[in-house]
C-alpha cells in the first residue's frame, strides 16, 4: 500500500511539546535515557483507541496554549489532561475520535485537570526513528522540543471511523489520586528510623522544578547518608540529595546517579505523578 505523507504544522506552542513513544530500550549501556511518554497509561490508551500499534508515536503536550494545522485528512484522539479543545474555532468535547479534514485547525486551551496531553494520530507520527524509537531527545534526534513552524509527518488516512453507541470511558479520578505507591529503594535501609517515619507520614508538595527529566519535591528531609559510588537509576527512582531534596526521576533522566536511591515509584504511580501540577500534594505509601 502506498501511503501519502501529511504534515502537522505547529502554529503556536508552549515549551515541552515533543514526539514520544514507548522509548529507547537497551541503550542505557551507552548512557542513553529511556525517554518515552511521561504518562504511559494515557499514551497507550490513545494508540489503543485509534487501533494503532502500541509502539506508534504520539505528540506529548505539557503546556496549554497550542495551535496546530493538519494539511491532510486523518483521525486523531486526545487523552491525558482534561483540556479546552477547539476544532476550527468551535469548542468540542475533547474525548472521542476526531475526524480531521485538510487544513483543519486544532487549538488547545486551558488544562482543566492534569498536566500532560497526548495527541495520537492514525498509524502514529512518522518522525525519524533512532535506536528503535521516535522519542525526541537532545543529541539523539534532530528535534528535542517542538517550535513554531515545525512540521511533523504522518500518514494521510481517508478511513471513516466506525462509530459505536458508547463512547470510551476515561477515568479522570486518577488526577485526584494523591497516594503514590513506592518500593523501598536500594539505599532505603541506610536511612535512620526518624527519616523513614517522616517519608511515610509527611505530605509532600510538587515544586516548580518539574520537567521530563525529574520532579523535585519542595519539602527537605534530613540526610545523613554519605554520597555513594555512581550507580544505575531508572524512571521512578527517588533520590535524596546531600542538601536533603527529594528528586523523582522521570523518563528523560540520566541512566546513572550518585545520590542515595531511597524509593522507587511503581510504574502505575509514575503515570499518576506525571499528571501532577506544581503545588499539588502527594503522600508515599510503601509496598
Amino acid at each position, binding site marked *: 500500500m502506498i501511503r501519502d505523507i501529511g504534515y502537522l504544522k505547529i502554529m503556536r506552542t508552549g515549551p515541552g511539546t515533543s514526539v514520544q513513544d514507548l522509548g529507547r530500550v*537497551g541503550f542505557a*549501556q551507552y548512557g*542513553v535515557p529511556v525517554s518515552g511518554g511521561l504518562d504511559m497509561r494515557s499514551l497507550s490508551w490513545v494508540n489503543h483507541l485509534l487501533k494503532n500499534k502500541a509502539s506508534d508515536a504520539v505528540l506529548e503536550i505539557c503546556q496549554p496554549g497550542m495551535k496546530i494545522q493538519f494539511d491532510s485528512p486523518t483521525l486523531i484522539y486526545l487523552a491525558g489532561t482534561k483540556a479546552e479543545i477547539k476544532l476550527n474555532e468551535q469548542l468540542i468535547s475533547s474525548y472521542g475520535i476526531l475526524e480531521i479534514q485538510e487544513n483543519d485547525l486544532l487549538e488547545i486551551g486551558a488544562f482543566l485537570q492534569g498536566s500532560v496531553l497526548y495527541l495520537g494520530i492514525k498509524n502514529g507520527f512518522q518522525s525519524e526513528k533512532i535506536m528503535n524509537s521516535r522519542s525526541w531527545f537532545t543529541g539523539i534526534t534532530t528535534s528535542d522540543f517542538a517550535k513554531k513552524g515545525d512540521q511533523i509527518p504522518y500518514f494521510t488516512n481517508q478511513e471513516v471511523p466506525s462509530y459505536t453507541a458508547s463512547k470510551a470511558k476515561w477515568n479522570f479520578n486518577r488526577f485526584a489520586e494523591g497516594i503514590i505507591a513506592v*518500593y523501598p529503594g536500594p539505599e532505603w535501609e541506610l536511612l535512620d528510623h526518624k527519616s523513614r517515619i517522616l517519608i511515610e507520614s509527611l505530605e509532600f508538595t510538587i515544586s516548580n522544578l518539574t520537567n521530563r527529566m525529574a520532579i523535585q519535591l519542595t519539602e527537605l528531609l534530613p540526610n545523613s547518608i554519605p554520597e555513594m559510588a555512581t550507580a544505575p537509576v531508572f524512571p521512578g527512582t527517588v533520590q535524596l540529595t546531600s542538601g536533603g531534596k527529594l528528586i523523582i526521576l522521570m523518563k528523560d533522566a540520566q541512566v546513572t546517579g550518585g545520590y542515595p536511591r531511597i524509593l522507587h515509584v511503581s510504574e502505575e504511580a509514575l503515570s499518576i505523578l506525571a499528571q501532577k501540577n506544581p503545588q499539588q500534594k502527594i503522600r508515599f505509601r510503601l509496598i
Partner: protein
Amino acid sequence: MKPIFKQISPLISEFVWNSAISDELLQYQLSFKEQLQKEFGREIIELRMGFKTLSVNLAKPSVLPEIENWLNSSKPEESLLCLSEKIWQIPVCYSRDTGRDLELLAKHKSISQEELISKHSRSPYRLHFYGFLPGFMYLNGLPKELHTPRKSIPDRAVPVGSVAIGGSQTGIYPSSSPGGWHLIGQTPISLFDPNLAIPVFASAGERIEFIPVTIQEFEQLKRHPQKPNFR
C-alpha cells in the same frame, strides 16, 4: 567476590559488591554480567552498570527465584574474564582556550600547568561504564593529587569535547551541557554518534589514554575528523 542481590521493583533488581572500586572488582562485574546474560539473556531487557553495582531489568518477574538460585550456586572465581588490553588514544588540547579552568586549577594545586597536564595524561584510565550523558565515560584512575571538589555553582554550558575534573573523577563531555566539573582541555574526537548501531567506540573494561596535542593539531583534527586510534 559474590554480590548481594536486591530486588527494587517487580522487574528491576540489583547486584551489589561491597568492595572498593578497582580493576579487580570491574573484572568480577563484567564476568558476572557475561554469565548472567548467558544464563538469562532471553529474560533480560536491559543491564546497567555502576561502580559497584549491576542492575537488571527483567521482561517478567517470574524468573527472579531462578536468578537467586543461580546466584547461590555460582562460583564467580571460576569464570573470571581478563580485562581488555586495548588502550584508546584520545588527543586533548590542554590550554586556556580549550580548558577555561586549567590556569586556576593549577594555581589552586600550587603546581605549574605543565605539571598538571603531565599528571593528567601520564597513565591510562579504566572505562567502567557509560552514564550521565549519552556517550559519557565513567573513568577510574585520576591521580589523588588532582582530586578537586566540584564547582559549587555549575557552569550553564560546557563545550562539547571538554576534558574535566570533578571530585575523584575525570571525564569528557560528549555533548554540550551544563556541568560542575573543572575544564582543563578539549578533544576534537567525536564520542557519540546516534546513527551508528553501537554509538560509542570504547567498551567497559578498556582503557583511555589522553595524548596532549597543540592547538594547531586540535584545529586540524576538528576540520578533518578522525576515529580515535588504539594500541
